[in-house]
């Protein structure tokens, strides 16, 4: 802890490389860059932060570090062309480091052109298994934004270490990327909230990238995550939709993207079946100001991008705005399952109240992109040059191609990210009141490994997140993947139905929130906000404020008109949750499995729907009843259009919905309208002339195939079971309407104007009075209705 603080307070130009001074090593001899691979110890390393390790751990490490390396004294982190941050977080967090001394990074051997003052940070710990690769955020954040559990981390304690309650280390951690099939996110098997996430409060963006067929341990823990930005379960056959949606507060509302490449696929189906735009969760939580920025900031203003040692890249994006952070990681791990971390560290100290997006950040992003493209061009050129020379090893060529692919992926991702940063600026009005807006950059995990432990090349994940930590502002989450993007635009609608009772189940531990219970009268009162001067009631707070302007100039100030936000400087207020006053209701606090309601609006809707009379009746169908006006209005939008009927009696307004229903349920068939099945079978006449007229009849009667029967007709005749029979229709042709032609068949014939195949037949038959008959039919229907 102390060590980190030290580094944080170090001046911008101090070096970010952390090192345990207590165990300052002799120059560790491990040089394992690509060129000297195979020539062990050919070159003395110039680095290194080194740490005492015990023998067993050292051996384990040796496998991890490329090329093994001679163990001379304390272990050293080699940092040649790959940057490994073997961060034994548990040690770190447990305060095992007594001090941290920044050192300059100098591990680059000849043949590599490393940007001179590139910052790197490396730790090694004594008694840990190198569980994590921690890419340090390129810009000084208040704390790490993301963690990646990589292929090397097999120890079950990996991520739990992070969440050790001893160390409030990562208050702003916003995503965990499980790159590894074996990374176990769920050490809690009881389905309760993952301890890792218990740390992150308020809910932060969690991105889970899984791969491979391994026992994706997060099955149940996924449900405990606060927020899903992106779940990508490529080849993760064990992950099922139920796991994603099960439990906790992680409902589909938080899921902005979900891809399932070659995976089980059920997740995708599931989300498609839901078919609704996904809404971000509604959070009624006090904002927490992240004041504990204990984490180190690494200064030298360079990005490190890393590649094969022949390649050199110009440095890029030297002046990234703190608001946007980028980390790039590529992995070429040919011989081991290591990961590369390109790192970018900004020298400026952190400003926890930086704004989310500004033009400078944008510009730097774009310039970064430009440089990046140049780099890719360089690689491609070099590949082209190498093609001339046969002596090149195929491995290298393949690696370079992979690199190009990775770079292109990252460019795409960066583009998306950059575009994504524009979002908060659009909604700047809301953001402006929020002090702590953090924009998390993009993360690219893109690596290949011969061992097959790492993430596949094709798997890369990007997510953009802004975390506003305000009760009002919804976290706008935009998750994308480089293919198969399923984007759900966040809907900022607070009184959506999905928020009401049963919509969302939180996993708030009992006691972590304050339970309020309104009385029935309060709930049913038309107004919730009252003017303190004249007593007038309002439904919305904003309307009240507008009203207050009339009571004097003191109410016209910006402060008075502004939305009353929670006191920013106070301690986090206890979350408020609501209870239904109806005893026995699940939403009542006395209930055994009490589930609180989130907002007052939820309470109102819940109470009306569940415990009140349904007094609003649809005037069209006269059958559907509602207790909430909004529900009635929703129903009226599609009432009467349910002309697609299943044999089970369910009606649908859309044909494809009916067919989806039919394909889902065994034995259900599409039901034809009555008219068609009741065609009189009169064609059985011996007389030739009769047969001829009969053929005409048949055509007529088949003309009404019921596909496009006028909606109004159904509405009117809906109550009669035999409404399709012409006789009954006559009875609806009320007295005084005899002037209208009988619309029974003519109306239904209009359906054939929609059939290209039939039009030639039937247009000729029904002639030009087709339209008029439709019109008259509609008219008579209307009149009948009004009667």
């Amino acid at each position, binding site marked *: 802890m102390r060590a980190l603080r030290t580094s944080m307070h170090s001046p911008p130009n101090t070096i970010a490389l952390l090192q345990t001074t207590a165990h300052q090593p002799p120059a560790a001899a491990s040089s394992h860059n690509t060129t000297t691979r195979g020539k062990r110890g050919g070159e003395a390393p110039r680095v290194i932060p080194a740490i005492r390790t015990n023998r067993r751990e050292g051996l384990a490490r040796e496998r991890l570090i490329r090329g093994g390396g001679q163990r001379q004294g304390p272990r050293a982190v080699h940092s040649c062309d790959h940057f490994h941050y073997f961060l034994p977080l548990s040690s770190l967090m447990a305060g095992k480091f007594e001090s941290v001394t920044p050192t300059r990074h100098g591990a680059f051997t000849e043949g590599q052109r490393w940007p001179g003052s590139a910052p790197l940070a490396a730790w090694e710990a004594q008694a840990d298994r190198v569980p994590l690769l921690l890419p340090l955020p390129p810009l000084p954040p208040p704390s790490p934004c993301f963690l990646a559990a990589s292929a090397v981390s097999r120890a079950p304690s990996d991520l739990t270490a992070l969440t050790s309650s001893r160390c409030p280390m990562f208050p702003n951690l916003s995503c965990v990327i499980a790159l590894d099939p074996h990374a176990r996110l769920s050490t809690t098997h009881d389905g309760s909230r993952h301890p890792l996430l218990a740390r992150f409060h308020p809910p932060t963006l969690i991105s889970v990238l899984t791969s491979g067929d391994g026992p994706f341990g997060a099955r149940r823990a996924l449900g405990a995550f606060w927020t899903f930005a992106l779940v990508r379960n490529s080849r993760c056959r064990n992950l099922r939709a139920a796991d994603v949606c099960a439990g906790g507060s992680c409902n589909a509302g938080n899921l902005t993207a979900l891809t399932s490449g070659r995976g089980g696929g059920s997740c995708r189906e599931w989300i498609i079946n839901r078919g609704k735009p996904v809404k971000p969760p509604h959070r009624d939580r006090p904002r927490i100001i992240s004041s504990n920025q204990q984490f180190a900031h690494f200064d030298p203003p360079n990005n490190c991008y890393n590649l094969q040692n022949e390649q050199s890249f110009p440095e890029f994006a030297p002046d990234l705005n703190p608001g946007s952070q980028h980390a790039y990681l590529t992995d070429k791990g040919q011989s081991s399952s290591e990961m590369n971390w390109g790192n970018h560290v900004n020298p400026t100290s952190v400003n926890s109240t930086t704004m989310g997006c500004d033009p400078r950040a944008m510009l730097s992003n774009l310039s970064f992109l430009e440089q990046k493209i140049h780099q890719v061009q360089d690689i491609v050129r070099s590949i082209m040059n190498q093609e001339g020379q046969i002596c090149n090893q195929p491995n290298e060529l393949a690696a370079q191609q992979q690199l190009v692919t990775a770079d292109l992926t990252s460019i795409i991702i960066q583009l998306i990210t950059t575009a994504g940063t524009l979002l908060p600026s659009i909604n700047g009005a809301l953001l402006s009141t929020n002090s702590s807006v953090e924009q998390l950059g993009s993360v690219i995990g893109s690596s290949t490994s011969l061992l097959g432990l790492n993430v596949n090349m094709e798997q890369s994940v990007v997510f953009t997140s802004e975390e506003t930590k305000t009760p009002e502002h919804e976290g706008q989450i935009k998750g994308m993947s480089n293919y198969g993007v399923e984007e759900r635009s966040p809907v900022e609608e607070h009184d959506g139905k999905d928020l009401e009772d049963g919509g969302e189940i939180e996993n708030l531990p009992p006691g972590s929130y304050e339970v309020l219970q309104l009385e029935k009268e309060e709930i049913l009162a038309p107004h919730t906000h009252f003017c303190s001067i004249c007593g007038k009631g309002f439904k919305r707070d904003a309307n009240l404020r507008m009203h207050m302007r009339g009571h004097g100039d003191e109410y016209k100030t910006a402060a008075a008109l502004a939305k009353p936000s929670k006191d920013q400087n106070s301690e986090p207020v206890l979350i408020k949750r609501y209870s239904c006053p109806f005893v026995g209701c699940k939403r009542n606090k006395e209930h055994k499995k009490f589930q609180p309601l989130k907002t007052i609006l939820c309470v109102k809707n819940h109470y009306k729907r569940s415990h009140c009379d349904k007094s609003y009746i649809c005037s069209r169908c006269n059958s559907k009843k509602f207790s909430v006006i909004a529900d009635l209005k929703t129903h009226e939008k599609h009432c009467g259009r349910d002309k697609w009927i299943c044999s089970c009696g369910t009606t649908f307004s859309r*044909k*494809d919905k009916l*067919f989806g229903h*039919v*394909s889902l349920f065994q*034995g*259900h*068939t*599409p039901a*034809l309208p009555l008219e*068609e*099945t009741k*065609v009189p*079978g009169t*064609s*059985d*006449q011996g007389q*030739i*002339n009769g*047969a*001829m007229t009969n*053929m005409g009849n*048949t*055509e007529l009667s*088949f003309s009404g*195939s*019921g*596909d496009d029967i006028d909606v109004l007709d159904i509405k009117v005749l809906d109550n009669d079971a035999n409404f399709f029979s012409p006789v009954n229709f006559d009875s609806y042709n009320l007295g005084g309407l005899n002037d209208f032609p009988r619309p029974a068949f003519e109306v239904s014939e209009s359906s054939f104007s929609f*059939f*290209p*195949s*039939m039009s030639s037949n039937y247009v000729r038959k029904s002639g030009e009075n087709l339209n008029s008959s439709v019109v008259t039919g509609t008219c008579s229907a209307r009149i009948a209705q009004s009667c």
Partner: protein
Amino acid sequence: MTTAKRLRVAEEPNYFDAVTEEILFMILDRLDPNPLDKKSFSLVCKAFYEAESRHRRVLTPLRSDLLPTVLSRYPSVARLDLSLCPRVTDGALAAVGGSLRSALRSIDLSRSRAFTHAGLESLVANSASLVEIDLSNATDLGDAAAAVIGRARNLERLSLARCKAVTDMGLGCIAVGCPKLTALSLKWCLGVTDLGVGLVAIKCKEIRTLDISYVQVTKKCIPSILQLKYLKNLSLVGCHGIDDESLATLQQDCRSLETLNLSHNEHVGHVGLTSLTKGAVHLRELILAYCGPVSHSLANSLQKFSKLQSIKLDGCQVTTSGLKAIANSCAPLTELSLSKCLGISDEGLSFIVGKHKELTKLDITCCRKITATSIASITASCTSLKCLKMESCSLVSREAFIWIGERCHLLEELDLTDNEIDNQGLKAISRCSRLSILKIGICLNINDEGLICIGRHCQNIQEIDLYRSVGITDNGVAAIAQGCANLQMINLSYCMDITDSSLKSLSKCLRLNTLEIRGCPRVSSVGLSAISLGCKQIAKLDVKKCFDINDAGMIPLARLSRNLRQINLSYCSVTDMGLLALASISCLQNMTVLHVRGLTANGLAATLLACVGLTKVKLHSSFRSLLSQNLIEHMEARGCQFQWRDKPFKVEAEPIKIWKLQSDVIS
């Protein structure tokens, strides 16, 4: 008197009673397919009659009004083919269902009209074991009929081709109700969309053959179709909603696919083909007729089909390089069809036949650029060729046909229409002793000499086409008639030198069922009478412009050729009497009577009324006003269609040279 007769019958023991029914059935199994034979068999005695009634499994009635009595005679009919009955009422269908019950397994209603879903309902309700229904061309039937079909739980094969009024709703009923469907044809079902087809693919998992040609489907239903586990034959002809772009993203693969027909899809190229056939390692036949140009990438995409045997590229634009690419990338082909392809050259064709020596079927119809070089390489490499169609390859020189005869001994079908073949070529071809179908129409260089060779050596010939091969005379025809006892079809149209003696010799061919002697002015009623006497199975007869044929020819024809179905009498000297005599042929369905001088409106009306089975009559439009409107309506209600023609009277035959010149200009 009667008692005495009965006594006498009782006295004489019926020796046939000793023959058990099993033996009778075995005899019946071995009888000739000729319906008359079975008729004679059943007339032997009561036991034979009953045995024949119980033995019959397939029934093809000519008229539906007698169905109840016929069905009571044949109780164990499993397949009822009503394609010859233009009018099948609901009552008839109800009778079928009522009398055959669960014995009925298959019914063909493809050419019948006038029934509704009510008739189908009684049929389906009674015949629980119905396995096959052919409802093609039932353009009046809509979703109600489809819903009725959906109640046939055991249905396996269903054709709804051209059922244009059936929509997704009806198809949905079928999909849910008939889970055992293995073959479904939705060709030209214009009311059907993705939803219906998709539901079929989801619900009917057993489907092996699916035809959604000309259906307005898009890419949306393709994934579920490709997930059918047993799908073998998929036909997507003319599905314009499908193109490369939409197919490119298909994820599914169908491993069981064996035949794929993508004809008439101009917008489907190699991309779509690749994604449709992803994983289809068992693909045997690929039909890409009238698609886009055959490109290299298309040819390369064929590489992965190791079992591909047949490719049909009819009407495509095929370049030499494309053909070479196909030759290089395909597994050994047995069947290749390049008819009407543009751009086929000697080089490409020689290359591909050189690579694929196991070809048994090759169609190069109308490949007008190829010369004897191609034929040389074809005959040199593909010696196992069984079928060669090379109509209108007019640049191929005479000697090429000698190579065909010398090298391809296994040929069974040979189409040399409109080629330069001469007698030497015919002599060589006569070595192909297995030849059964030979078309040498419009071959102006051949005469009797060659044809006599054919007649002597090719004894298996069943069909021979000598249309406008004007060098042929009676001698050649006699040789054919003598040598080819199995002859079933002969076309001698516009062979001007043919006389009655040809017909007399042809009357020895007992199996002859099709005779076309259009435009042979030297043929008279005498010859036709000889045919009537000899060829009892004659079903199609074209005697147009045989001016000497008159009533004298018609009467024996009407009396003896009871199987006649189709006749063309235009320009003949037949009068009312002859035509009326013809009306007694109950099978007669199709009649063309144009420019018959001796015919009056009354005679025609009488014929039409008397001829019960008529389905199509072609008449001169002058009769339209002469015949009463009631009669026409009556005939139409009976299921007969009238075609009114207004062709000018043209007696003199066109000189062959002029005609040839015209056809060249057209082509």
